[in-house]
């Protein structure tokens, strides 16, 4: 079924009786060409692009709970391509281009909103770093504008220009950055993959990975064994446990990231604003809630909930930067489990086991990567070659020291990225 305004009109006039499931709930088959472990954003988009770009159909996505139930269902919905290191720059640029055609491609309104992102800076040194980043973006063919203090004031007059602890020098503006409706992205990819013949199997936890003579043979699940020629691990939040089934240890630590939404309010914040000195970022959803977050809770955890010191720090940053949001009331807070890698950048690679692939380590930037990640991972799985936009996200870069992509410059301590 194609979605359109006309369709909505027609259904509305006939009692909305014609709607059909967005995806099937098939029984797992005994064998697939490719099994994808993880029905989150990255798993679903990988399946979608395997089908769309490589004509592969005999694919299953195995999801332990419900599709889209991981971090794609609990993030702050920001989409951007403002990285400054080789490896990330071309990858996120690729991803953003896919975002820009996503609605037509999926025939699903994911409400991708290019409302612009402003990264604030507060010193000459930070301006230099912002300039380095902006220049990289431009050289990659993306958009970046360096805003001075007065230009910034025109765009976002409600920031604290008078007595902010770290005064506002300006911002790096990325007009094509923005937000998207996170759940809809998962659903859109799920529907698209399903329409192309991919089996999405929910409530199907993988309990083992079958490996013989260094080659992957399939997986064990709570719904029985499934044979597969290739297996892709895309289970951010649980990457280490899945990899352990294949006898692997990953350079990943799992950490909690909390996020917050306020009650619905009339439009007041038009862009995405990030306040690096306060580890704070905020946007306003189309529904009116202020959606914002900050830094990690900092300790390794799988509890998917955080604690108060981080909550308070995030709110302090908000009050410092924009005291006009003080009366907005926090409605809900939640925590996601982040795959923190030792350089803050993802891993998209083959493993030493033939036919076994890994996609993990998204730190807290996985949402914007969903289209790009699926596209380059599908390319790798289907062709065996690295996609040109993702030649550097290698698993062995830490061992060799070649091509470490450390945007924060914090080194090997996972929680500092």
């Amino acid at each position, binding site marked *: 079924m194609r979605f*359109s305004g006309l*369709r909505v*009109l027609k259904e509305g*006039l006939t*009692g*909305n009786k014609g*709607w*059909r499931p*967005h*995806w*099937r709930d098939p029984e797992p088959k005994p064998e697939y060409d490719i099994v994808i472990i993880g029905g989150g954003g990255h798993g679903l988009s990988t399946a979608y692009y395997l089908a769309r770009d490589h004509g592969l159909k005999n694919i299953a996505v195995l999801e332990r*709970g*419900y599709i889209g*139930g991981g971090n794609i*269902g609990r993030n702050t919905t920001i989409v951007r391509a403002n990285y400054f290191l080789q490896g990330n720059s071309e990858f996120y640029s690729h991803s953003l281009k896919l975002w820009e055609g996503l*609605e037509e491609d999926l025939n*699903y309104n994911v*409400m991708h*909103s290019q409302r612009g992102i402003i990264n604030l800076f507060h010193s*000459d040194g930070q*301006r230099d770093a912002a*300039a*380095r980043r902006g220049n*990289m973006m431009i*050289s*990659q063919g993306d958009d970046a*504008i*360096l805003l001075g203090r007065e230009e910034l004031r025109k765009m976002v007059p409600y920031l*604290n220009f008078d*007595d*902010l*602890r*770290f005064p506002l020098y300006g911002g790096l503006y990325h007009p094509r950055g923005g937000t998207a409706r996170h*759940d809809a992205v998962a*659903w859109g990819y799920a529907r698209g993959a399903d329409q192309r013949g991919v089996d999405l199997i929910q409530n199907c936890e993988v309990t083992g990975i079958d490996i013989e003579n260094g080659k992957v043979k399939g997986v064990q699940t709570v719904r029985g064994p499934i044979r597969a020629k290739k297996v892709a691990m895309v289970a951010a939040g649980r990457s280490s446990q899945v990899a352990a089934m294949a006898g692997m240890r990953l350079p990943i630590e799992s950490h909690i990231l909390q996020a917050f939404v306020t*009650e*619905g*309010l*009339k439009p007041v914040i038009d862009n995405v604003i990030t306040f690096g000195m306060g580890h704070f970022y905020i946007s306003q959803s*189309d*529904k009116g809630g202020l959606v914002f977050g900050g830094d990690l809770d900092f300790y390794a955890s799988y*509890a998917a909930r955080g604690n*108060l010191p981080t909550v*308070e720090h*995030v*709110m*302090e940053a908000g*009050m*410092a930067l924009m*005291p*006009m949001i*003080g009366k907005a009331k*926090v*409605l*809900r807070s939640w925590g996601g489990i982040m795959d923190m890698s030792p350089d803050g950048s993802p891993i998209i690679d083959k493993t030493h086991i033939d036919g076994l692939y890994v996609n993990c380590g998204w730190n807290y930037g996985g949402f914007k990567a969903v289209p790009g990640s699926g596209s380059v991972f599908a390319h790798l799985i289907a062709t065996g070659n690295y996609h040109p936009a993702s030649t550097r996200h290698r698993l062995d870069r830490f061992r*060799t020291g070649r091509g*470490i992509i*450390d945007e924060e*410059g914090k*080194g090997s301590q996972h929680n500092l990225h």
Partner: protein
Amino acid sequence: MRIEGKGLIARDHRVSFTFDGVRYSGFEGDTLASALLANDVRLVARSFKYHRPRGILTAGSEEPNALVTIGSGGRQDPNVRATVQELYDGLEARSQNRWPSLEFDLLSVNNLAAPFFGAGFYYKTFMWPRAFWEKLYEPMIRKAAGLGALSGQDNADCYERAFAFCDLLVIGAGPAGLMAALVAGRAGADVILADEDARMGGRLLAETYEVDGKPGHVWVEEVLAELRAMDNVRLMTRTTVAGAYDHGTFAALERVSHHRADRGAGAPLECYWRIVARRSVLAAGALERPVAFRDNDRPGIMTAGAVRAYLNRWGVAPGKAVTVFGNNDDAHRTVRDLMAAGVHVAALIDSRHDAPEVDGVQMIRGGQVCGSMGGRGLEAITVRRTSGEERIQTDCLAMSGGWNPSVHLTCHMNGRPEWRRDIASFVPVPGAVPGLRAAGACNGAFSTAACLREGAAMAAAALEDLGIKVPQVATPDAEDTPYALEPLWAVPGKGRAWLDFQNDVTVKDVKQAAVENFRSVEHMKRYTTQGMATDQGKNSNVAALAVLADATGRGIPETGTTTFRPPYSPIAIAALGAGAEGKGFQPQRFTTSHAATVARGAPMIEAGLWYRPSYFPKPGETDWRQSCDREVGYVRNAVGVADVSTLGKIDIQGADAAKLLDFVYTNMFSTLKVGRVRYGLMLREDGHVMDDGTTARLGEDHFVMTTTTAAAGEVMKHLEFVAQGLHPEWDVSLTSVTEQWAQFAVAGPKAREVLNGVLDTPLDPTEWPFMSCGAVSVLGVVARLFRISFSGEQGYEVAVPARYGASLFDILVKRAEALGGGPYGMEALNVLRIEKGFITHSEIHGRTTAYDIGMGGMVSAKKDCIGKTMSQRPGLEEPGRECLVGLKPVGQDGRLLAGAHIYREEAEPKRTNDQGYITSVCHSPTLGHMIGLAFLADGPARYGEIVKMVDGLRGVTTLCEVVNPIFFDADGGRMRG
């Protein structure tokens, strides 16, 4: 309509307020909701999506409809629940989400278009043409969305935060909570009793039950009086315990001044508490659930318990002819209370065929309300029974679908409540929050007697855990009626039946979600927005789950459990982040020369938490560059003085102090002689540079290490980690002495002359060669002197105990000025160091190695050190890495920009041709042109090459020559001289 003789309000204290500009009056003790109802105001708000007229549904913080805006300007407070807002004289409330007025709201046209606005409609449309999303559709949607509005002005109220500790936290002061507090209080335990209401007592204030043979509210007052008299009990009214966190930590919000007309006394509006409790009792009560039927959202339709609360606590009848509709015995109380108060009850409709009889009222057993009529308020309902449908004229419907225990806090640590079939509700699982026990209605015990019993028992159990002896406390007599109901979630039929009132989610929406395969409860919630309004599904989640279960042919337990995230009810960001406005965000650190520096007009810039001067302007200078160039000139030609106290200083003592330094620095320190200073480079264990600085050997076992300002804390942690974690066997003590010493750089050809003016013994140049150090006497005070240089000139740093810092700075500056020099700031300091090719964190930004910055040779081959092994990974040493170079423009006027990227002269400036980037630039007054430090692929091999600097952001392209990063005095003769 107010009922004489009823209610616990202060009839002798009349207060006046406005709603949408119309003046009304109420009494002290009223909420805005009770006062509006007393004034027969029924239309209070508009819903989120369809802009349906809405009234007041509940009498508590779970209210989904009656949200208003209080106040204006910087005090404008949107989305305030009228049911929570206490009335005060002069209160100004306004309705929300309507235009032009509450009565005539143009966007109520959405209601007519409802067939096209079903669940998830926007995912299916607004996709064409593509450009219209940001330009047309989204702005339209955004404008329509949201309820209240922020003023856009800075928040003008004061908020505060605090910590509290106790043995037992009792959450909720209804019968269960009061008994728990009483038992624990009498046991002598350290107790906090917190309740979100302005008045403690819970349902006992809203019902007509007797406790211990007296009216419930009288018993409440007696218990409170006893508790107030106990030193070991703290009563926190107006305090909502909003979140349960690890290890007995709770977040709570106290509404300190929302009920006060005068807030000018400096009192905080709210206080956000972190309460640490060794044990806790959750006595949060239960929330009544509505029944879904066609048009069940009209003003005048309320929960039955709310009708009783308005009647009994506030003396208000919400209608002249009230109808009661329920599926349980509890609803019958509403009939009895209304009749006893003389309010006409039009009918009692009980969906159960075997419901017990209630005398004196027209009773319809086995009937269901299947629709409502009315414009902006209820006028009539339709009742369906086996014999057919019947219309009843009524202006208020009190409905009850049963009660949901308030399990919310028990979900905050991922606990999943379990389904209890007999009460058709979720109840907490014991242990869901460690140390917390649920008692009373929130635990599924609904009679007053059961609440009292459980409250006492749970407190006793908690005290036993803590080893506190529990006294015998008799449970007072109270009603012990069993709670009987037959589930009724949604009355079948055509039309729209509301589940989530605020978000306009109907039974149809949930069913449609199920049809579209959003069958997981989480999918349904996200697809329909069910439960995502400001009440977070308190009123609707269980019913929606039941509808979904029915639509998917599953039982409720298999369909899933509802979960709740903190906070229990919304909390203002200003409360959570209280105190962070302006300079309160982070501590400010001031050097001892701060006041003098500011007095000289120096603009201050942040360096970490510190403030340092940018430059010291002189009269006639119109541009910072003029000041900067002049200050550079001081140092190059005469003498400059700079406060360098912000650099981290760590005192290192012990027999193994030298071993520690050898281990944390790449180069050797055990060979350093006493009285000498050495530059050191420190790596992280992953082989990249962490920090640099000089370390002086003051004695055989005594060193003082200098770190950069930015990395002082990080280095201290690192050293402690090595000393405690990796080599606990070493004898070494680490103490930060950053704050003990005020330290000033005195640099330039006349530096010695300035110093000799303050040193009690003049410097002997032969005893004080470059990189020497030692104790000196400055104007009679024991001080330290280091001959080091970050400027490339003859330089010293003199350190005195910080109490003398301000004084010494003044003296040094005065003496420097007398010699043609003066103070210099960060801008000049930066120029001086770039001219010398000295690095800062602009260069050692966490991604560079010793090799990259040309210091590969400083990694001693003779010993292991932190980071050495990993720095030898192939990728960190191979050709092609970007390494430090100097850049100078090909023409004198060429402009360099930090952050610009570097390309080969002929190459197109695109990423794939990128050769490096510029980290630091300045105009060098010494050389007369701009200079820069940069990282360039294979840089040191390319001296003399012409490359292109491109700054696309600022539209600047400059040809540059790659040069040695030491631009000035390459052999260092000046600083040794």
